[in-house]
């Protein structure tokens, strides 16, 4: 069944079963491999994308549930204000180690910052606890989110 989804502003038509998780459409059908597979059960957050701006685990999101919603992936998040700030903060704060989970971390953090320009520690816990980092970059992720929020506060 042909399904059309809008990814990073571009309509893409794919022919897969309607219950196919968005993750595999992105990675294997469309070749957008920045979104990662970690668990397949929404337990780790590596596959996080935005659906209409909301952080969403693509590994459990069936393609036929998306309709006309706008999907944003790590490949496109730098074009958003919050995403660009988060990416810069990640580089400035030298957050990344192996980097495999960081696409998902950045997507969760961007969604947080877009909806909450000055998140508290508790807001950060709530938004980010669904994203596992096996390299243990949590301390730096927290600092980078705060730094990105400060740059927002200055109107940057």
């Amino acid at each position, binding site marked *: 069944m042909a399904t059309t989804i809008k990814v990073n502003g571009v309509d893409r038509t794919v022919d897969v079963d309607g219950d196919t998780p968005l993750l595999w459409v992105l990675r294997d059908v469309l070749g957008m491999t920045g979104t990662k597979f970690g668990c397949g059960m929404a337990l780790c957050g590596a596959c996080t994308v935005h659906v209409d701006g909301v952080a969403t685990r693509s590994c459990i999101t069936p393609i036929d549930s998306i309709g006309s919603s706008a999907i944003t992936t790590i490949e496109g998040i730098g074009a958003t204000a919050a995403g660009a700030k988060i990416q810069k903060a990640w580089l400035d704060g030298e957050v990344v180690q192996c*980097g495999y989970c960081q696409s998902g971390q950045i997507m969760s953090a961007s969604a947080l910052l877009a909806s909450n320009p000055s998140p508290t520690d508790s807001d950060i816990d709530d938004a980010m606890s669904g994203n596992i980092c096996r390299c243990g970059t949590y301390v730096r992720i927290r600092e980078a989110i705060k730094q990105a929020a400060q740059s927002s506060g200055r109107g940057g």
Partner: protein
Amino acid sequence: MVLDQITSRAADSDRSPSESGFSRRAFLQAGAAAGGGLLLSLRLPLANGDAEAADDFVPNAFIRIDRDGQIVLTMPYVEMGQGTYTSIPMLIAEELEVDLSQVRLEHAPPNEKLYGNPLLGGIQATGNSNAVRASWQPLRQAGATARTMLVAAAAKRWNVDPGSCRAQSSEVLHALTGRRVRYGELAADAAGMPVPENVALKRPADFKLIGTPAKRLDTPAKVNGTAVYGIDVRPPGVKIATLAQSPVFGGRVKRVDDAAAKAVKGVRQIVQLDDAVAVVADHMGAAKKGLAALVIEWDDGPHAKLSTQDIADELERATLNPGAIAQNIGDVDNAMASAASKVEAAYQLPFLAHATMEPMNCTVHLRRDGCDIWVGSQAIARVQAAAAKTAGLPLDKVIVHNHLIGGGFGRRLEADGAIRAVQIAQHVDGPVKVVWTREEDIQHDMYRPYWFDRLSAGLDTKGIPVAWKNRFAGSSVLARYLPPTFNNGFDPDTVEGAIDLTYTLPNMRVEYVRVEPPGIPTAFWRSVGPSHNVFVTESFMDELAAAAKQDPVAYRLALLEKNPRAKAVLALAAEKAGWGQPLPERVGRGVSLQFVFATYMAHFAEVEVAKNGGVRVRRVVCAVDCGTVVNPDTVRAQIQSGIIFGITAALYGEVTVKNGRVQQTNFDSYQMLRMNEAPAIEVHIVPSSEPPGGMGEAGTSAIVPAVTNAIFAATGKRLRKLPVDAVALRQPI
């Protein structure tokens, strides 16, 4: 740094060094590179000390300075998050007087003869925290040699004394005349210069790069989705496969009903192996759906009734008999007999999975005459050899393209994933990417061994330990992985952290009993031997302090008079942690001290134990003396990382087996520490000009006993078995 340059091909002739112009020097030679640049060929000393025969100079690392000024380093280490792709180029850039950004890395193709790591017994692998340790001296010497030759070439061109020239920012300058020339223009001339026999290395005070928090070179591609990990490769026409392996190790496929799986849209093929079934499809969604639709009947084989308890019981029994003596100091039996008091304890550590965030995967294109493999591996020569054997191909027909690693932790030192992928590829036309589900990844890992340890100590009337006995039983990973390292009944990894303690112990005996668990494959796991031994020795040291009714920090310090570096890190960490300052009820501080991977480290964990037994690590303070610091930000990052990894293991890490099956499946049953549980972490670096110690793993082993010792401080409960049992910590009502 261009990340796509990091991938490599085994049979890549254009990267082979030119043979021309080699001098007779034993460890470093220079000559012309293809294309007219300067090529330095290095030979890192081999562990068995046979590197001195100059007649058969075989280089294992290369530095090329091209005519355009680009500097290319070919080296055998792989990036898995530990910062090696930044730290290693820093060593060369420092002495060569170039910007870090001008050094490009190419990963070495698989060839153990060339790229074997001297601290890993000559195997080509990235592990045991030793990339910087192994290359610290030779890479700086190489950089200095190249610099000296470039200066000599410029001096000759200008007809001036080389001593009147200096190198700076990729140029040679002649201050008197204001002349300058770029390295690229000098590279061809420099190749004809004699190789200096001795070059002076910079004094630490003159370091410009080493010791600075250089930005990591691999990061930009990792924040915008363009970094390519093994799991991301997409050779044209690739199919995606996922698999079910026998739930019981050693079991076999008895019967498969694949009718429903074949009916799934996008499923192309079912591949049945002796002990696994794979579904090959257009995409992973179809492959997983197909796998779920398979009906597989298994023959569970000889381990159908195996349980973790059986293994623990066997190990416990094994410690009742003497083992191989790993260290024997003084007369422990005599000292024990005359001690004023005696302390005994037994400890157990569980099997652990690696749970790298990137699940196991390997992509194979097998043809009649050759094979391409795309994978992220810590040991690509192993992958190449295993694939060649499985495919029945000569070694040189197997080309391994190595990629970024989404977490290694030792898992990707193994070739089992490549073997499995080749077995599947033997049934598939065209390339196939085999991706393990998280459940397969956890249930078919190769595990950190289970350990049982029996310790006893004799104290004198002042509580000072006069006798120390440690006998432990478990699997030797090295005995399988690198058999020549297993000698006299033990190997150096298994006992690291149990012998050569920082403390002065006049009478000490450490014995190891090798017991391989039936059916359960074991492997290296981040911080390897010390992941086990440091927990045991530092827990027991804490028990001795408690038995002696002494402060655990003061007790340790008193045993460190002969070890100033260890004493310094412990004292610094204690001060920074606020040791001795009061804490609320059910909050405690715990200490640990270790010297492993040539790095001294003291940890203080501040832990809160809830009334329901739940443990929260609030704060960790670490002091480290890892010798000369190459990149202090990487040191901090690796300690932060190791601490989170270790707390995860201390609080949650446990793989159990019932009826021959691993019971944990995914991140719900094999839990990871998360953002809301992560402690504040402080790292204090002790300045030192000693050679660098390893950093990738030390933080993991050190934190575990600090946490359990803190739990003891908070509750009075001594935990001798990991992971932490929250039920045992519940406050009685």
